[in-house]
Every structure is written in structure tokens, then in C-alpha cells.
């Protein structure tokens, strides 16, 4: 169950960021921001030659004592960052992957909307609903 979900544009500004506990939102924003460095590190570590084979799912970016941060990059350098509660030990890697896949699909649907200008904040209700479902799902 994600505690915070963020979509970061290629230029590293947020297109969409939402967290469940409405208090401490700033803390999550900060965590997402710092995770961007890790994401960049992982991308560059692969090297330019491997850009085609680079996997989209980056895995655990870094753990803190309360939370774990997972990352996912699309081919257009749009990053999805998800913060998960560490106490949720039931969450396996596969589930995180599937959550990212759902995010990616919803993001593609948002892109397909001709009224959406890439680079705008994501205001699609379908996307919101999908993220809500991810955040409140009871594990």
C-alpha cells in the first residue's frame, strides 16, 4: 500500500504528487525529491550503450527506517516514485512492479488525451482514481 505516489517529469519537476497521510506531506515531498538523485544515479550507471536494455523498474531506491522508496523510469525519462510503509512486510517486489505497471498504463492513457499538454500537471480523474485505489488498498 503506497503511502505516497509521485510522477516526475523529465526535467525533474513533479507532474503529480499525492500522499495519504495528509499530515507530514512535506516530509514525503522531500523524500521524493532526494530520491531523484538516486534515480539519476541508477540511470547513468547503466551507461549509454545499455539504454535500450535498461529495465524500467529500478527497484528499491533507498530505505529509511519507516519507509521504503521505489523507483521506475519510462523511456521518455518520466519517473515514478513510490513511497511504501516499511511496516508493510507483506508487499513483495512483484506487487510493487505491478503497481508501477498500472501507473504506467494510466499515465499512457493520460498522454493519449489530446487536451493534455505534456508537461502539465496531471489532473485526470481516472488517474486520480487509480492512484487512490493503490493507496487505500488493504494489504
Amino acid at each position: 500500500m503506497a503511502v505516497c505516489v509521485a510522477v516526475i517529469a523529465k526535467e525533474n519537476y513533479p507532474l503529480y504528487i499525492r500522499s495519504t497521510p495528509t499530515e507530514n506531506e512535506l516530509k514525503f515531498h522531500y523524500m521524493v525529491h532526494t530520491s531523484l538523485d538516486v534515480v539519476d544515479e541508477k540511470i547513468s550507471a547503466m551507461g549509454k550503450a545499455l539504454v535500450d536494455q535498461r529495465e524500467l523498474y529500478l527497484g528499491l531506491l533507498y530505505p529509511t527506517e519507516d519507509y521504503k522508496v521505489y523507483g521506475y523510469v519510462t523511456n521518455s525519462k518520466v519517473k515514478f516514485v513510490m513511497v511504501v510503509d516499511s511496516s508493510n512486510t507483506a508487499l513483495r517486489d512483484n506487487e510493487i512492479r505491478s503497481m508501477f505497471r498500472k501507473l504506467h498504463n494510466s499515465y499512457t492513457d493520460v498522454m493519449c488525451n489530446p487536451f493534455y499538454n505534456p508537461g502539465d500537471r496531471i489532473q485526470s480523474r481516472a488517474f486520480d482514481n487509480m492512484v487512490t485505489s493503490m493507496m487505500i488498498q488493504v494489504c
Partner: protein
Amino acid sequence: MEAAAAGGGCGSGPPPLLLSEGEQQCYSELFARCAGAAGGGPGPGAPEASRVAPGTVTAAAGPVADLFRASQLPAETLHQITELCGAKRVGYFGPTQFYVALKLIAAAQSGLPVRIESIKCELPLPRFMMSKNDGEIRFGNPAELHGTKVQIPYLTTEKNSFKRMDDEDKQQETQSPTMSPLASPPSSPPHYQRVPLSHGYSKLRSSAEQMHPAPYEARQPLVQPEGSSSGGPGTKPLRHQTSLIRSFSVERELQDNSSYLDEPWRITEEQREYYVNQFRSLQPDPSSFISGSVAKNFFTKSKLSIPELSYIWELSDADCDGALTLPEFCAAFHLIVARKNGYPLPEGLPPTLQPEYLQAAFPKPKWDCQLFDSYSESLPANQQPRDLNRMEKTSVKDTADLPVPTQDVTGDDKQVLKSTVNEALPKDVSEDPATPKDSNSLKARPRSRSYSSTSIEEAMKRGEDPPTPPPRPQKTHSRASSLDLNKVFQPSVPATKSGLLPPPPALPPRPCPSQSEQVLEAELPPQLSRAPSQAAESSPSKKDVPYSQPPSKPIRRKFRPENQATENQEPSTVGSGPASAATVKPHPTVQKQSSKQKKAIQTAIRKNKEANAVLARLNSELQQQLKEVHQERIALENQLEQLRPVTVL
């Protein structure tokens, strides 16, 4: 009571409820009201949506939805509640679902999250406020608005809350100055009336609205002062809706009063016609898509805000492919119209706007079939030579991508072709006698398309576009024709039509000498660039420029058989262009074509000879230059050798 019985029976989703005494009483009363409004009794029957299982007591979707809305919870929460209570799954509000929903409403109102767990604890009773929602106020009916202001806010005991709704409903329905007597209903039995015109927001809404006038009339005896308005509820929805429609004139002038009879999300035949016409204006092929950008430009004209348009797109583009098919387009258009009329957008696509529903409800329009019929008839009946078939098929693909102007051209082609086809038929030296005239005319139509595909380049190059039949077919044939076919002299149109040997490619340029010249001129510059490179000096290069014209033609002849005629014709047409054009254009007869063919070949021969002569001259000059350059080089080398021994020292 019912909860216990129904808990085992109807619902299969939510867990069994434990209701307190007060809760039970309240809920059962509410349920009875909602169910009563539906016509009462088990199995509401035909008027109710068919998804109601027979034999169960259900609450009509209408009153239930209104009741939920009265709870003043946000629409999202209400949807969550309906989902959780299982009504969506089973499709109707049975007692279990209803009770669970009420419990969830209470939970939500107490601030608890909407979950099954939250209803297991003790909760206060749900509160239902009946203040007018925005959607209802927007009707623009002054009497109605007046009625809302007269509303007396009640305390939130369960019975009183419903009496409040009664007040408002009664005041709504009368619309008359006699509101004061209605304002004192505490003694009257609670009468839950569906607020008219609060349509379309709930997904649970069914066509039950049609039958609501009936139960209202049935319940009239229960309510004393409303006897006069027994016909009111039934006719009021119609009246309101018609006034609503008239008051909000859409910029696209949709004024179908009957369309909003049952639901605002239902598309009527008239609206459908309009949408289809608009679709056609954007995209002639009704079975294909409107691309995202085209649709965006079109819908932006409606002057709705971008976020709203974005949301409408999200709702209507069911497969999220960035393009709109005809049903998707109709749904989107309908939503825009509704929004402009003041209806707030629904949370989800209403069932009557789903693409499958729209496709099933309305048959495919007839106008799209004509073209495709011609294709289907012509292709199987096609007995043409292979090249024609190939051209047809490629042209079919091409025409799908063609811009509209070329289709206009093909339209002209079609007409002219048909006439020339008919006139040239008797002269047909057909090797395909079996083809009937109908199939011929039909074949002419697709063939005209093929002409357009090949003639696009010519049309663009030429600028002017005389769609004379003879050149067109010859053009297409020439593209695929071998030299053998060039020798065959056939009437152009019937030849193509019946799939005969195509007429020689020399004919086309004759009617359009200027065009061929332009064609040549277009090709000259690349040739010119080559020529100066050949020349050693700059001065000879200038001479080469005119000489480069002849060399270009033979080269081009290899790669561009269709321009062969243009090349051949160029010298002749330059000289006698206008005259020949004038003579050629109106004479598509066999004999003249054959004679012109011969002339063309003769001129071509002459031209080639001239070209040869010129080339020979050029060759000799270049050879001379080469010699001179050689001599210079030798001289320079001598000088170098003379100087070298000096430096070596």
C-alpha cells in the same frame, strides 16, 4: 425484519449487519419509502429496469440516489458507498444493500472512512439534509427556485428529514402561489418524492423515471393538498425539461424536447443525426477515427474550459487510444452539449453513452455504404489485368489517406469517367467481353480513385488540373505499363475500364504541354547540378547548361516511364503545344490517338537524334579540354623537375 430475511437472500457482498432498534426502524422506513416510490411491492415489474430480480423488494434507483444525495456527502463517497454495499454488483438496491449503504452513509457522516469495517461499530443515524443541490437549481425555473427558498430547514430526525424533502418536493411540483398550504405538512404522512430533473448523475438511474409519474399518482390519495397536482409530477418533468431546453439554447441549436424525457444522457435520433453529420464533416469515413488533434480543435470551439474538455475526453474515449470512433464521438459531443446546457459532468460514462450501447442502439448511417459497396462489387468482379488490380488496391489505400481536395478531384473524375465510359463502350475492343456495363461503371469509380493517387503528384506539379478522362487512365496505366503496352492503341477510358491494354503513355502530356514543361523544369535543376560538375571550366559549363537538358531526358526515361511521354512530347509541345493541346483535348478517338502516337514516336526519334548530336559535340569539346589540361599538367611537371635538382642539393 427485512434485513434479517434479506441478509441471507439477496446480498452476497456486504457482511451481515447488526442494526440497533432505532436503526432498524429508521432504515426500514426509508427503504419502504424508496421501495414504495417505485410502485410498491415485490417485483416492480416492467417499468423498472430489467436488472431487478423478480420477487425481491427493491428500492428504486431514483429515490435512493436522491436520498443519498440528501446526505450531503460528496459524490465520490456516495459512489464508494454504493459500490461497497453491493448495489452495483447486483444491479439494484435490495434491502441488504440499502441498509449497508445507509450505515455507510452514517459512517461517512461521522467522519469514518468508507469501509466495511466502519459499519460494524455503533453509529449515529444517517442524516439527510435536503438543501437544493446545484444541479437542481440550475433549471432556471423561477417558480422552482422560489420554492426552494421557502424551504424550512428541519432538525435531523429521520421522519422530519423526509418531511423536509416532502415540503420541497411539494413546493416544486405545484409551481403555483399555493405554496403556503403545502408548507405545513408535518401532519401529512411522509411522502418521498423524487426531485424531478435531478437526472443523469447517478449511475443507478434507469428508465424507472418513466414509471415514476404513475406511483406519484398512486400515492396522491395519501397526501391531502396535493390532489390538485396529481398530474403535476408526471407532467412536470416534461415541462421542466422542455423549458430547460428552450431556455438554454445550445450554440449548435439542438432543441429536441423529447430527448430529455427520460434521461439527459440518452441520445435521440435527431441528435444522433446531427452528431453524425459533424463527424462526417471532420472525417468522411464513418468507420474510421477522428484523430486527437482534429477532435481537439473541433471541441475547443465549444468554448468549454480545457480541464472540462479533458475530462469529457477521458469519459468518452473508452479505449484510450487518442482517437474517437463514431460512437465515442457522439458520446463526447453529447457530453459537451449537456455541459453547455448546464448539467454537471457525470463521474463516469453513463450507460446510454457507452460505445457498445450507441453502436447497438443506432444502425450505421447509410451514407457510408455507397463507396464501400462500389469497392466490394468491383474488387471481386474485377477481371482486369494484374496491374490494374494492383493499382486499384494501392489506390484504395491511398485514397484512404488522401486529403479532401483530391477526393473532389476524384469526384469530378468519376462523373467524367462515367460519361466517357458510356460513350466509349461501343468502341471497346475489349478482350474482356464478360464484364457487364454495371460492373464497368463500378470499376470506373474505384479506378478514378487510382487515378487520383497517381495524379496527385502530377496535379501538384501542374497546378492546373483539367480532369479529362483520357489522360488519367493512361497515366495510371503508364506507371505500370511495359513498353509493349505502349504500342497498343486503345481508347483510353474503355481500355482502362475493361482492363484492356492501356493506351500509350505519350498521350497524357499532350493536353497539358505547359504542365509537362513544368515537370521537366522541376527535374532540370538536379540535372543542371550534375552538368557543371562534368564541365572542367566555368565557361564551358555555361554552354553545358543548355546541353544538359537533352542528357537528362534519356536518363529520366529509365526511371520514370510515366514521364516518357512528357519527355518525348516536350520538344514537340514546345513548338506546337497549344495547338496540339487544343486539338488533342476534345478528341479521345482511336484513330487520332494512334496517329498522334506515331507522331509522338517520330518526334521522339528526332529528339533523340538531336540529343545524340549534342552529346557528341559536348564529348568532343570535353575531350579537347582534357587534352589541354593534360598539356598543362605536363608543363607543370617539367617545371617541377627542373626546379627539384636545385633544391635537392
